[in-house]
Structure formats: structure tokens, C-alpha cells
């Protein structure tokens, strides 16, 4: 097949032709998208005729590439788990054009120089765009504030100690006061450390049955309440990461009703898996906050339908297989999912009829853009050519050995899913093509 190769810089004009065009403004029918110099030049029927080369979409769905405000790319220092090259390639394979990286690396991304290095390095890599997050406290220790203004100047778009809750309420308040003044988003990993204790899974009937230390939903709800109060008090925009429980979601609904500047995220795994998955004692299912009960999952889905949820973030958290072959106490928290996030969500929530496709796309496009205050991604002339072509029909089995991520395992391994990205374009360059990945 002709057309640009993955990651290839493409000179001249090229086009995706014969695609079903959908964006946040609605369904635009079948047409072409003409691309030049990293931007969309024209959209509509027949505009592809002006291109020097083209890719035939065959009627598949073309839409703006997804935005992920929450991924652990592990660089610097944890390259055995993932690095920028593998992480950004994995994001591209998942249809994501932009990724916000988390700062819990070695060393922690808590200095402007480290942010600058990430930005520079990512610029030269094919794959999704990197917009780095930076730590709220030095070393994620929750003791002293990092220099938000300098981090922002270096390219950080978000302040977060994700992975570690900010236990000290006074520190959280100061962080929000600074962030509000600078217009930075504070993302929180909201769990009360003392209530969470040594829990490795959701506390409930299943944890008692399995004899594993539990982490109660109250640990999340209590901290979400505090973080929402601090947002209200300071006016800072606080984005609550990975909400997992009904209780925490109800707290957020309460504060949203008051008009507090709070937004929230849920993850693909918390929407599709429950604590019952731990019955097989596989540490792949050990995540923080934990997979919750059926009732919690049902409530999160209800919140999606009602529009309480602002964005879906993957919380892609790769580890080595050996780390996940430990016991459930010593295995680390987190699972890789960025490559299968959309197929999982599409198959389980959209194809099943629970949520419309437009609603799902909003959570991956306009939703996260609004959280960050970025322009809403659109298929229109002048917009960046960040696109994903989705095959909503063909069922393919999840095969982690083919992941671009270094973490070649998955909770969904072997499961047949639909909604696979076939082509991802970032800044006019093809950064992923399914036929190449499958070759």
C-alpha cells in the first residue's frame, strides 16, 4: 500500500480520503481531509484530489486524535518499564495524539531542567505529542512545593504528585493558591493515606474472602472532599484523577453543583473491571486506587452518561513482567492500557449501547481539552493534523506481545475487541499504522 510510513515526515500535500468524518461538532458524513505542513488544509468531499499521495480510509471513522491527561511514561530513570519512545509509540497505537506524562520518575520531574529535557527529547521522537506534568512537591514527598512558575515556563502543563496523595492539607492549599495565580491545573491522586493503610485491593466482601488487606472507598471519598474544598477555597482548577468509587463521585457531584472549579477523570479499567478480578491472585489487577465493586462500576458508568465525568485518562502504568510476577504485597500498583483503551471502552460501553459514540469521543477529545483550557480539537482547515482513523467493525484479539509498550501484558489479553485504531496522525505525520504493527 502506498502512503507515508510510520513516523515519516511528509513533505507536500497528502490526504486521508473516503473517511467517515466525525468531531465534536457532529457527524460530517463521508469525505476527505487534506493535510499540509502539519495542519489540516481542507475538509470535505473531493478535497483529497489536490493531494500528491493519499490513504484510502474505506469508510472508516476519522476523528481528532485522543488526548490522554494521565500516563506514566517512566522516563527518566525507569526505562526498564517504559521510555518516551516506547510510551509515545504506544500512545499513538492507541489513537492518542497528545499525552500528559506523570512526574513519579527517578528522579522525580520536579526541576525545570528535567521538564525541558523531556520536551526536547520528545520533539525528536515519532509518536504522540508530549505535554509533561510536573511534581507538586519535591520528590513527591509532600513536604516542600516545587517552583510552579519555572516548571510552567519549561513546558509543564499540569502540577501533580500522582502516585502519591498529598497528605498535608496546608501544602495542598498553598499549591492551589500558586496554581490558581499561574493558571495551572492541579491533578490530585486523592486517597487518605491512613485510611488506605496497606490495602492492596478494594475493601469489601471480596478482600475479606481473599484475605488481602483492603483499601476502603472512604479513603478516596475523604480525600476527594478535602481536595474539592481546597479548590473551592482557592479558586484553583483541580482535576481529580482516576475516580473509582460511588462515594467519591457523589462528593464531586456535590461540589460541581456548588460551582466549585473541580473536574474529574475515570480510567478504562475502573469502568470495566471489578475487585472480583483479584480472585485469580494476578498482580496485573493491582492498581491504585483499586478496582472497586460492581455497584461502584455501575455508578461510574451512570456518571459518564449524566456528564459528571470530564475526561477519560488511561493512567497507563507500565511495569516489567517480573515485577508483576511477585506476590500481591510487593508487586507494584498499575497496569498498561494505552494501546487498548479505546477498543475496551468502545466494545464494553459503546457497542453494548450504554453510551453513544459521541459521548465517548467527547471524553477523549473535547472533555480533556476543556479541562486543560486547550482548543477543542476539530476536523477543520487550520487545525493541527492530529487524527485517528478507527475501525469500528473488525473484531481483533488483544495480543500484548505486539504492544509497542514495553509492558507486554494486559488484563484484556486474549479478549476479542472492536474499535481498533488503524492510523494515527500527529502534526501531519503518520505515527501509527495498524497494518505495519500487525506485519
Amino acid at each position, binding site marked *: 500500500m502506498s502512503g507515508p510510513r510510520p513516523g515519516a515526515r511528509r513533505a507536500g500535500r497528502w490526504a486521508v480520503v473516503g473517511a467517515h468524518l466525525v468531531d465534536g461538532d457532529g457527524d460530517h458524513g463521508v469525505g476527505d481531509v487534506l493535510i499540509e505542513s502539519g495542519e489540516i488544509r481542507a475538509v470535505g468531499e473531493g478535497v483529497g484530489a489536490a493531494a500528491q499521495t493519499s490513504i484510502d480510509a474505506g469508510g472508516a471513522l476519522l476523528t481528532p486524535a485522543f488526548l490522554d491527561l494521565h500516563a506514566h511514561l517512566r522516563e527518566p530513570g525507569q526505562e526498564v518499564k517504559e521510555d518516551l519512545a516506547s510510551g509515545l509509540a504506544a500512545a499513538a497505537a492507541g489513537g492518542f495524539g497528545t499525552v500528559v506524562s506523570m512526574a513519579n520518575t527517578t528522579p522525580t520531574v520536579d526541576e525545570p531542567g528535567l521538564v525541558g529535557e523531556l520536551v526536547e527529547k520528545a520533539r525528536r521522537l515519532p509518536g504522540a505529542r508530549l505535554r509533561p506534568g510536573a511534581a507538586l512537591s519535591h520528590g513527591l514527598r509532600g513536604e516542600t512545593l516545587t517552583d510552579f512558575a519555572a516548571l510552567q515556563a519549561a513546558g509543564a502543563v499540569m502540577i501533580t504528585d500522582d502516585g502519591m496523595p498529598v497528605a498535608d492539607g496546608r501544602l495542598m492549599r498553598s499549591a492551589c493558591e500558586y496554581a490558581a495565580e499561574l493558571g495551572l491545573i492541579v491533578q490530585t491522586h486523592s486517597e487518605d493515606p491512613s485510611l488506605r493503610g496497606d490495602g492492596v485491593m478494594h475493601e469489601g466482601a471480596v478482600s475479606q474472602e481473599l484475605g*488481602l488487606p483492603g483499601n476502603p472507598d472512604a479513603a478516596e471519598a475523604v480525600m476527594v472532599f478535602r481536595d474539592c474544598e481546597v479548590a473551592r477555597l482557592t479558586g484553583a482548577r483541580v482535576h481529580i484523577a482516576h475516580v473509582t468509587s460511588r462515594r467519591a463521585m457523589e462528593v464531586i457531584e456535590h461540589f460541581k453543583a456548588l460551582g466549585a472549579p473541580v473536574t474529574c477523570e475515570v480510567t478504562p479499567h475502573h469502568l470495566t473491571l471489578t475487585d472480583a478480578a483479584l480472585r485469580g491472585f494476578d498482580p496485573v489487577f493491582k492498581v491504585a486506587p483499586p478496582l472497586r465493586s460492581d455497584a461502584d462500576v455501575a455508578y461510574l458508568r451512570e456518571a459518564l452518561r449524566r456528564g459528571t465525568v470530564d475526561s477519560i485518562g488511561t493512567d497507563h502504568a507500565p511495569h516489567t513482567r517480573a515485577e508483576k510476577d511477585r506476590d500481591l504485597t510487593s508487586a507494584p500498583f498499575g497496569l498498561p492500557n494505552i494501546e487498548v483503551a479505546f477498543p475496551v471502552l468502545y466494545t464494553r460501553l459503546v457497542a453494548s449501547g450504554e453510551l453513544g459514540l459521541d459521548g465517548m469521543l467527547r471524553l477523549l477529545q473535547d472533555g480533556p481539552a476543556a479541562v486543560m483550557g486547550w482548543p477543542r480539537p476539530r476536523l477543520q482547515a487550520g487545525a493541527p493534523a492530529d487524527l485517528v482513523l478507527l475501525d469500528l467493525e473488525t473484531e481483533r484479539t488483544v495480543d500484548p506481545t505486539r504492544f509497542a509498550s514495553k509492558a507486554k501484558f494486559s488484563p484484556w489479553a486474549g479478549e476479542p475487541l472492536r474499535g481498533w485504531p488503524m492510523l494515527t496522525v500527529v502534526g501531519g505525520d503518520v505515527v501509527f499504522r495498524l497494518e505495519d504493527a500487525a506485519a
Partner: protein
Amino acid sequence: MTATVQIALTEKTRARRRNLLDFAAWSSDEVAALFGTADVMAQVLTRTIKKVPALQGFTVGTLFFEDSTRTRLSFERAARAQSADVISFAAGGSSLSKGESLKDTLRTIDQMQADLYVVRHPTAGVPYQLTRWTDAAIVNAGDGRRAHPTQALLDAYTFRNRFEGFDGFAGKRLVIVGDVLHSRVARSNVELWRKLGGEVVLCGPPPLLPPELAPGVRHSHRLADAVEGAHAVMALRLQRERMASGLLPSVAEYVARYQLTARALRSAADGALVMHPGPINRDVEIAGDVADGPRSVIETQVASGVPIRMAVLYTLLVGKR
């Protein structure tokens, strides 16, 4: 001739075996048969020569990632009394802390070709995880808070042998008192006792007896109420860490409300037995005179450990499915 021998030696000779991880895959009839085998083993142990060749040629590996001299000795005695070879591995988590995964540890040890591993680990689920990486049989000798099936077997076996006029577990009430939350002994006893048709009551201070634990089992926070009509009362060991971690106010408070005393046992059924998985904290969870008293079968429990574990090893290695 030489070629034939080589083939025989390189062939994988271990078929996939049955495990004892908990009682989910065991029927009450199978447990009853196990008790029958234990009776035979108990006979062997009364002979002058306390050894039979039943497991000659088999190798039993003990993998203890957590210290437990008593349980390990009991299993090793049970293996050797049947002429099995024993290899012991005491990790205490040391090699794992250097970054070796559980899988790597097992794969290395598994090169010694044991037929069965007896596994103790501080984290729930480890014996279950190990079944994915070896064809050898796995016996759970205690995993975290989850299960300690041979302890529950020897507890039920002791009750069967010592309760006067025993006519089955139906209608028999076992009351377990103490730190139920952290107790694999309690969880395994609940599972087995109910499987055998008996009734269980759990008793302890609220932080150590969460409501979600053991659905369908009666909970009580008052010792006197819990013990009423009991046919066996089992006290659990109270760890001092529970006070330090803020779960309980003090030893004195616990003793005042939950210590198994002669007075507390007054409302139990006639002939009720007093049990404890050991080692006891004398005069903490159980009054010294009760531990030493006529109703106590604590020493019988320890003695039952060897024939029960002999029966488990025998059943898993050579017993019929």
C-alpha cells in the same frame, strides 16, 4: 539399552497433581476420607518403628517465606515418616527483596524436581500463584490472612476424635474468638467447618471483625453471647502489634472483654472443647487455667498435626482422585 535409559531420565515424569490451597475443590466426603487416612497414620505413629515406605522415591519441598518452625517441622516429620525425601527452602523474603520475582525463585527451586511443595508466605494468594509455574502439587501451609487448610483439618480432626459422643458435624457449633481479621486459621476453619455441615460463630472486637467477613456467619462482639451453646471454642492468638497500630486500646481492655475464661465458658454446651491454634499468649487471649484445664485439647491439636499432614501428603501424591 543406554539410549532407553536416557529417554526415561529426560522425560518429564511429573504429571500435574492435585493441590490443597483451600477447600474450594474438596468435598466433605473427600475430607472424611482424609480423616480415615489420618487414623491409619496415627496408628503408624504409635508403633516402635514410626515409619512406612508409602512415599519412598517422592520428594517434598518446604518453601517457607515466613518463619514458622512448628508448621515446617510438622510437615517434614509427616514426609519423613512416609520415607519421602525432604528439601527445605527458607527465604524470609531475602532473595525477593533483592529483586527476584516469585516466579524466578520457584523456577530455580523447581529444578530440584520436587513432587510437592509445602508453601508458607506472608501474602495471600502466593500458593495459588505458584500453581501457574510448576507441575508439582502445592500444599498451602498458610498464606497471609487467607487460608491455612491443614490447621483447619487438624482442628476438625481433633474435634471429631475428642468430642464425646461425636456423631458428625451437623448441629455442632464452633465459636472462634479474637483477631479474626488477620487470621487465616479462622478463615480456613469457617470454610471447612461449614463444608462439613457445622455452624460457626465469630467473636471479637469490632476493628478485628469487619462485617463483610464470612458472609452468612453470625458475628458477635460480646463473648458471653457468642459462647452460648458452643460445642467448641477456639481462641486466636493476639499480636501485640494490634495495639501499636491503633486497632485496639490495650491488652487489659482485650483481656477484660474477650479473654477465654472458665466463667465465660459456663454458657457453652456440655462437654464443649477449648481449642487454640498456638502458640498461646497465656493469660492474654486465654486464661492459663482454661488452657491447661480438662476441656482443653490444645496439645491434641498439635499432636494431630503430623497424622493429618501425613494423610494430606499421601492423598495428594499417591491417593486416587
